[in-house]
């Protein structure tokens, strides 16, 4: 079980800020594939991975990062702080 968080337009497209996901995906990319297979709104949100960023346990990483031991996965667009 991992907590999956969505922010900004990813949150809006998927329609929720957070959910618990039962997964045995090895990497972030595998988790994304599982989510996309579920429902069209996930496929729409994850259509272009180049326009997305991912953090594992609140550290930025990439889509090939392994999920073993991770408790919190977050997907969001490139950040626009400042």
């Amino acid at each position: 079980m991992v907590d999956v968080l969505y922010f900004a337009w990813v949150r809006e497209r998927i329609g929720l800020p957070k959910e618990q996901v039962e997964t045995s995906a090895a990497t972030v990319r595998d988790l994304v594939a599982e989510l996309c297979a579920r429902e069209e709104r996930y496929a729409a949100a994850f259509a272009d991975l180049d326009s997305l960023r991912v953090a594992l346990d609140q550290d930025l990483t990439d889509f090939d990062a392994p999920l073993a031991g991770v408790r919190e996965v977050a997907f969001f667009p490139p950040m626009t702080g400042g």
Partner: protein
Amino acid sequence: MTVRVQEEPFDFGVEANAFATGRTDAGAVVTFTGIVRDLARGDLDRMVIEHYPGMTERALEKIEADARARWDLRDVLIIHRYGAMGPGDMIMMVATASPHRVDAFEAAEFLMDFLKSRAPFWKKEITQSGEEWVASKAEDEDALSRW
């Protein structure tokens, strides 16, 4: 060394004075303040900033620690708001204090460059005609390569 992530407004002048006043160890203080700009059409109703509680503080503290490791800084302040704000409102500020003006300037620019594209904030602009997420700029990502 202070990092604050907050919804409520802050008073730039009060923060700037508290940061700079009575300092005898650092002759150079630089501040940067980000202000909500109106749109070219002049119709911005408000800006809403979303963030990732927990990761935001973590990211800002890392950026601040990186700056301190790199320049001779006697103090650093980062304040960043989230939530709704209107044109002219202050979004965030950073301040650096150093014995050397070049260090104070470079560290403030470094903080801003990383804060722009490595701290989990997202801006949305809301007008009468709708709302739109602000797109990140390639130049902001490119700015990181100078450090």
